[in-house]
């Protein structure tokens, strides 16, 4: 097969800002960034709490979170489908086959990563800072907030890992989003569909975009980390 032809078409689609392609890219980024944002807002304080305190149910949260860490995306998609489908307990929300359901699926997939990675980071930081925090009598809220603030450089990496998982997800968003054109079609589901239908140009174009997104996010992360390290705020 001549791969150059689809590559040329893909590049022309990209440089011409083809509307449908731009819509797919926009939706992908929107859904994934929202899911990552929600996961970080919930996962980071929870990771800090798990690292810094012993409380009833802590072990259960860790076990559940670690279990979800290895959960196959299609299973997550299936569970959410059952929950939000018309006959499911949350069917009244009417979010099946909408970006909201896709955000929910990605959040559930990404949240355990945010919790597990942040707990690891916060455990190391907490060991370092606990004597000082205890000595000055920090409140529980300020303790957690301070850990999150001190971990900011590592949190960039955690955010990146979460985003990588979210943007590359296909199984769960296919099930709960339905891959509906102009509505819930994202880059990964489009690639799967385009490939199966022989529309290799679109598939390659989207593949290039996915790679570019990963590249840009990595470059930005390196720049931010480098700046912070140059100023002595290294981890």
């Amino acid at each position: 097969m001549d791969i150059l032809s689809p590559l040329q078409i893909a590049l022309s689609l990209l440089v011409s800002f083809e509307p449908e392609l731009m819509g797919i890219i926009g939706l992908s980024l929107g859904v994934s960034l929202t899911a990552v944002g929600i996961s970080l807002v919930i996962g980071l304080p929870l990771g800090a709490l798990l690292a810094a305190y012993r409380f009833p149910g802590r072990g259960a949260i860790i076990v559940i979170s670690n279990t979800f860490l290895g959960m196959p995306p299609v299973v997550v998609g299936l569970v959410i489908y059952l929950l939000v489908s018309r006959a499911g307990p949350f069917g009244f929300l009417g979010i099946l086959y909408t970006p909201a359901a896709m955000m929910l699926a990605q959040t559930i997939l990404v949240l355990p990563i945010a919790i597990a990675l942040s707990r690891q980071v916060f455990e190391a930081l907490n060991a370092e800072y606990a004597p000082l925090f205890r000595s000055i009598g920090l409140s529980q809220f300020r303790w957690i907030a301070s850990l999150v603030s001190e971990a900011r450089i590592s949190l960039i990496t955690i955010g990146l890992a979460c985003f990588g998982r979210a943007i590359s997800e296909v199984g769960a968003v296919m099930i709960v989003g339905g891959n509906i054109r102009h509505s819930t079609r994202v880059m990964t589901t489009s690639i799967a569909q385009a490939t199966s239908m022989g529309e290799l140009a679109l598939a390659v174009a989207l593949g290039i975009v996915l790679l570019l997104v990963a590249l840009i996010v990595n470059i930005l992360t390196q720049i931010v980390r480098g700046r912070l390290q140059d100023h002595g705020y290294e981890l």
Partner: protein
Amino acid sequence: MNSDLVTTILTISGLTVSRNGNRLLDNVSATVARGSITLLMGHNGAGKTVLMNCLHGLMAYDSGKIDAPPRAQQKMVFQKPIMLRRSARQQLKFLCPLLVDAKIEALLARADLIHRADTPARTLSGGEQQKLALIGALATHPDILFLDEPTAHLDFEATKSIESMIREAHDGGTSILMTSHNRAQAERLAQHVLLLDKGMLVESAPAPQFFSAPSHPLARHYLDHV
């Protein structure tokens, strides 16, 4: 009022700490006079830091009793200052959140750190970090200040500067309990000395008496080797 409360800031009764089958402190009883500089001395592993951590509430003990000012009236400076990933000024604000900016600047100036205020705290020199930790601890005029080898690994100038700040805090009415391995420093600063050996308090004496005529053989042996 009980006269003991006036003259004593800290009373330790039968303090015992064991970890993993090792006795770290063994029935330690002592007092620290209000307004004094008391040096806690002893070889490595004698239990100095363990005792200080127990007194400051950072470590649980198995038995015994501690009568000390409330935590809010205590401050502690660690051997290796714990620095945040922030500037020196932000570190000080973190340690003293209720202080206004002008007071923060005044403290930085007092510690001769005003020119380093925007430098990341973790990149300051050891002496600068210790001074930053010390002014943060002293900003709220604590009743008692615990100092865990505050000048370990510091050069002469930095040591002199820290000792001057310690004397200033003492003159301001803060009682000080500090550990040190440095006999010369102990003789310069101490009014009273507590000597620990293998978790046991073997000598408690006024500094002149401790250095000139220690009563316990282990104290004499210790002084021969520091």
